[in-house]
């Protein structure tokens, strides 16, 4: 029954609607690009083999892309923070207060993570140095090298996000991303310690 041709007046309306549909906003391309980059970095930090990159492609572009998407996302959120018709300074002020609370909580969590990471790093550093050492069994050496590479990748991302936050300290979403990166690093350092315990046992 639906095989009857569409009413031409409806077809005209549909065509008009399609013509009026806006193109994707310009920032979406960078957002998609960075989402792919973050997915790739996440895959790497979980110990899965990252999607292969072409020879010479720098690892740091992942982190740079992450920083870029954060900038775009937050810029977009800021732009849309005051939607027309929502009227008001009251909502805006309330929103800022919520953001300020979240920011303070994020900063406290960051400090906590930084302290935990410093402790773990101190313990893990001499173990990681055994990677590639002639006295280290090849299997352990390989695992340590892999962990070292993953830690370096997360470190690069952390450095990029921290640099971005230096000039944009009030951006809560960037801080959330930073926390996630800290947690990734914490997990990796713990993995180093567990590996050392296993080998000593």
């Amino acid at each position, binding site marked *: *029954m*639906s*095989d009857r041709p*569409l*009413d031409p*007046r*409806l077809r005209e*309306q*549909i065509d*008009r*609607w*399609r013509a*009026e*549909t*806006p*193109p*994707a*906003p310009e920032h*979406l*391309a960078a*957002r*998609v*690009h960075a*989402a*792919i*980059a973050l*997915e*790739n970095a996440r895959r790497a930090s979980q110990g899965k083999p*990252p*999607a*292969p*990159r*072409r020879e010479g492609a720098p690892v740091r*572009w992942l982190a740079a892309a992450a920083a870029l998407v954060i900038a775009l996302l937050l810029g977009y959120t800021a732009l*849309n923070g005051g*939607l*027309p*018709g*929502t009227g008001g300074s009251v909502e805006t002020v309330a929103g800022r207060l919520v953001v300020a609370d979240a920011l303070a909580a994020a900063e406290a969590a960051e400090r906590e993570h930084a302290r935990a990471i410093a402790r773990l790093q101190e313990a893990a550093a001499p173990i990681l140095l055994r990677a590639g050492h002639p006295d280290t069994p090849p299997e352990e050496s390989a695992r340590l090298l892999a962990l070292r590479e993953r830690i370096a990748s997360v470190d690069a991302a952390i450095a990029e996000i921290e640099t971005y936050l230096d000039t944009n300290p009030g951006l809560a979403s960037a801080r959330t991303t930073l926390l996630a990166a800290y947690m990734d690093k914490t997990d990796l350092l713990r993995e180093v310690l567990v590996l050392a315990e296993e080998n000593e046992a």
Partner: protein
Amino acid sequence: MAQDGPNEDRLLLARCGRGEPEAFDELYRRHGDALYAIAWRMLRRPEEAEDVVQDVFVKLFQSAPTLRVEYPLAWLRRVTANLCIDRIRRRGRGELQLVPEHPLPASRESRGAGFDLERAVGTLPERAREVFLLHDVEGFKHREIAELLEISEGTSKSQLFRAREMLRGALEGGTS
């Protein structure tokens, strides 16, 4: 939308499978607008449309190493529609915090109180609306719609008939 490029799309898909970021960028450049348009019309919320397009490409990243399809664009469109349907369902269950729908374009506002398809579609029962959007607006086949909505092709056809009749009634009534 690139009309002549399934071969090019397949090559790009293969490069995506090898993890080349430029290939994802190029696929986005070719089809991003078309995918965004589907999401925009189905969801009527720009922020959600952006989220969907981003999710489509993340899904592509996850699937690309093993994905073998004749028409990558068709796959991307299906995934887009699927994610939109999922969001509509979640909205219905109250799982999504909703932002306001996009405002009507100024040109349409200025046309006054005549028939407004977009608004009229919004008044259709959910299933009829989805089928109408997917079939008449986005060009999906009944077979594809049946898969997307987990209904039979017969149901898809009957829902389309229902939607068209209701819209025709609204059109002849001169209101949405």
